[in-house]
C-alpha cells in the first residue's frame, strides 16, 4: 500500500468531525430527505459539512470532487428489531406466516434506507453535489487507510481536484454492540462510540492558488496486512484499535478513529495505531497545524 502525499502533491486542507451531539441540519440541501436519514447519515453529513467549512469550500462540488468513505458495521436499533420479532412470533418461535402477515406491514419502508451502508455516501453526495468517483468501503478501521490510498491515487492522476475522505461509525445500537460482544476479546458496549470524520485533500498547487491552509501532513506510516482465521478461538490480537492519544477514554470509533483523532487535535503531532482483529497492523504519524 502506498500513502504518498508527496507523490500525489497533496495536502489536507480541511478536517471535520461529528458525534451524537452534532446536527446535520445546517448542511441539508433538501430537508424533505431528512426522513430517509439514519444516525450514520446524519453523522456523515455533519462531519463532511464541517470538513468543507474548515477547507473553505462550499457546495456544489461537482464532477471534480471524489468521495472516499469507510463505513462501520450495519446498525440496527433495538426498537426496530423488537417490533419485527414481536409481530413475527407464534408463541416463542419465529413464524414466517406471522412475519409475512404482520411484521411485513410493520416494517417502515424507510428503515431499509436508514441502515444501508451506501446511504451515508448518498446523503453526502446529494447535499454537497458530489458527482465525481467514489469508493464506499466496509467495515473496520483498516479500511480507512484503503480509501485514503484510493483518494491519493485519484488526485495524483488528475481524475479529481478534491477528495473528501471520511469514515462513519454508528455503533451504539443493538446489532453493532452484539457484534462486538461476540468477538474475542469482546469489546464492552460502553467503549463503543458513534462518530464520523472527514478530511479534505487536494493538490498543494490548487490549495495554494486558492489560499487554503494546510491542516495536516502525513509524516510517516507503515501498514501490514496479515490474513487471520476469523474463527480462531484465540485471535493473535490484543485489541481492536488504539487511537491517537487525543481521543480520550479509550473509546473506539471504528473506521472513524483516525479522522476523529485528527479533528480533535488542534496542533502538534498525532500518532494513530491500529492492531485489528481482521489483520491490519498500521501506524501513521501526522503533523497537525
Amino acid at each position, binding site marked *: 500500500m502506498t500513502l504518498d502525499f508527496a507523490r500525489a502533491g497533496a495536502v489536507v486542507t480541511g478536517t471535520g468531525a461529528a458525534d451524537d451531539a452534532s446536527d446535520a441540519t445546517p448542511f441539508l440541501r433538501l430537508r424533505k430527505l431528512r426522513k430517509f436519514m439514519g444516525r450514520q447519515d446524519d453523522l456523515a453529513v455533519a462531519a463532511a459539512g464541517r470538513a468543507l467549512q474548515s477547507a473553505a469550500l462550499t457546495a456544489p462540488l461537482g464532477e471534480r470532487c471524489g468521495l472516499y468513505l469507510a463505513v462501520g458495521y450495519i446498525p*440496527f436499533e433495538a426498537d426496530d428489531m423488537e417490533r419485527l420479532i414481536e409481530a413475527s412470533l407464534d408463541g416463542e418461535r419465529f413464524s414466517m406466516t406471522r412475519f409475512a*402477515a404482520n411484521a411485513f406491514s410493520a416494517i417502515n419502508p424507510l428503515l431499509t434506507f436508514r441502515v444501508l451502508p451506501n446511504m451515508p455516501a448518498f446523503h453526502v453526495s446529494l447535499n454537497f453535489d458530489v458527482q465525481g*468517483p467514489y469508493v464506499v468501503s466496509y467495515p473496520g478501521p483498516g479500511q480507512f487507510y484503503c480509501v485514503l490510498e484510493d483518494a491519493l491515487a485519484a488526485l495524483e492522476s488528475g481524475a479529481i481536484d478534491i477528495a473528501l475522505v471520511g469514515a462513519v461509525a454508528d455503533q451504539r445500537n443493538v446489532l453493532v454492540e452484539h457484534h462486538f460482544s461476540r468477538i474475542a476479546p469482546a469489546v464492552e458496549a460502553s467503549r463503543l462510540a458513534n462518530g464520523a470524520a472527514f478530511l479534505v485533500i487536494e493538490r498543494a498547487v490548487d490549495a495554494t492558488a486558492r489560499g487554503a491552509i494546510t491542516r495536516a501532513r502525513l509524516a510517516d506510516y507503515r501498514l501490514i496486512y496479515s490474513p487471520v482465521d476469523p474463527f480462531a478461538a484465540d485471535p493473535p490480537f490484543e485489541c481492536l484499535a488504539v487511537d491517537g492519544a487525543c481521543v480520550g477514554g479509550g473509546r473506539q470509533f471504528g473506521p472513524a478513529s483516525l479522522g476523529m483523532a485528527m479533528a480533535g487535535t488542534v496542533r502538534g503531532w498525532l500518532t494513530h495505531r491500529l492492531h485489528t482483529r481482521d489483520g491490519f497492523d498500521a501506524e501513521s504519524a501526522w503533523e497537525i497545524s
Partner: protein
Amino acid sequence: MGNIVTHRVAVTGMGVVSAIGRSVAEFRDSLFAGRSGVGPITLFDPATLPTRIAAEVKWDGDVMRDRKVTFACAAAAAAMADAMQGGTRPAGGGGLSLGLGLELFSMDDLAARRRGEPAPAGARERLLFLQTPSDLCVSLLSRRFELCEPPSTHVSACAAGTDAIGSAFRMIATGRRRWMLAGGADSMINPLGVAGFCSIGATSTANDDPPRASRPFDLRRSGFVLGEGAGMLILERLDDARARGAEVHAEISGYGASFDAHGISEPHPEGRGAFQAMSRALQEARTDPGEIDCINAHGTATPKNDPVETRAIKRLLGARAHAVPVCATKSMIGHLIAASGAVEAIAAIVGMKASMLHPTINLDQPDPACDLDYVPRAARPHSQRCVLSNSFAFGGQNASIVLRRADA
C-alpha cells in the same frame, strides 16, 4: 485527465455461482440458451409476502449459514484454479477486492435471544449467531488464497461488484498491486431481504409465472427479481500473464464511477450519473464510443431504471445507439445486488470469447421508451472486441467497466 494506466490488465481466471450455472461453462451454455433461473422461493416459506419468487442457486454442497460466503469461496476457488491451469500462480503478492452484500440478522436467532437462550459458546458458532459479519468472507478468502495486500471491500449496493473489479483493475493498472482476486457475492433471499425489497416496491410480484417475471426493457416489467450467487475474477498484469503462459480471457481497460447526487431510489431523469460513469470508463480506456460493440446493461426491469439507462446509452453512443446490442443478464439470473456486476462481467467475457450475444429474455412487448436493440428472446452471433458493462445502485452510485477481447 484520467488515472495513470501504466500496465495492461488481463483476466486470467473466472469463477461463477448463479441460478443458471455453478461453473463458467454451465453458466455460458445457459446464457446462450436463454434459460431462466427464476422459480418459487424454496429457501424459506415466503408465506404471503407480495414477492414469492427468486433466482435461487441450487446448491447441494456444504453451505455456510450465510450463503453468500459459501458462494464467494466456491467462485474464488474456481477462478484461482482457472488462473493456475498452467501450474503457476500469478506473480507477486496478491490482493482482494470484494463487493459485499448486506449482512442481515436471523429471525430464528432473534427469537432464541428473546427467549433468553444463551449465545453459542464456540468461537465459530458465536461469530455466526444472530448475524454473520460480511467481512468474515474477506478474512476467509484472503487467508485461503494467501492474499497479503490490504483488502478492498465495496458496499456500494448494486454497483459493488463492478466497483470491486474496477478498483482492482485500477490498482494493477497504476502499479499499486501485481494481481487481484476481484468480484462480488450476495444472497438476500431470506425473510428480511425479500421483505425489505418488497416494502419499497422494488421487486416483481409476478409470482404465477416465475421464469417470465424478470422482464428488462419490456412494457410489462414490474420490478426486479432477486437472485443470489457470486462472480470472481483473477486480474493480473498482461505482461505477467503472458510470461507465465496463462490463458487471457479478456482485458479490462477502463473503469468509471459517478454519483447521481439526485434521488435516493430513483436515477437522475436524464441518466446524468450513468452517462458520466460510462464516459469516464471509456476515457480511461482511451476508447471512443464508436468502438463499443455491445453493452451489458444494468437492466433491472424496474420501471425507473430501464428508460433512464436507455437515455444515457443514447447520449453516449449518439446516432450509433440503435446499432449497438444491449443485453440484460438479469432477465435470466435476477438481480444479484452486490454480486451482479461481477457475474455480468463474466457474462460479457464469455460472450466476447464465443462471439455470441446472450438474449434478454421475456422481452416480448418493448417499452416505447426503451427502443434499442436489446437482443430479445434468443442469442445470436456477434463479434465483439469491446464491451461496456454497467451497474447502477440505489443511492445513485454508478459504475461501468470496459472489457476488451484478449486479442483485440
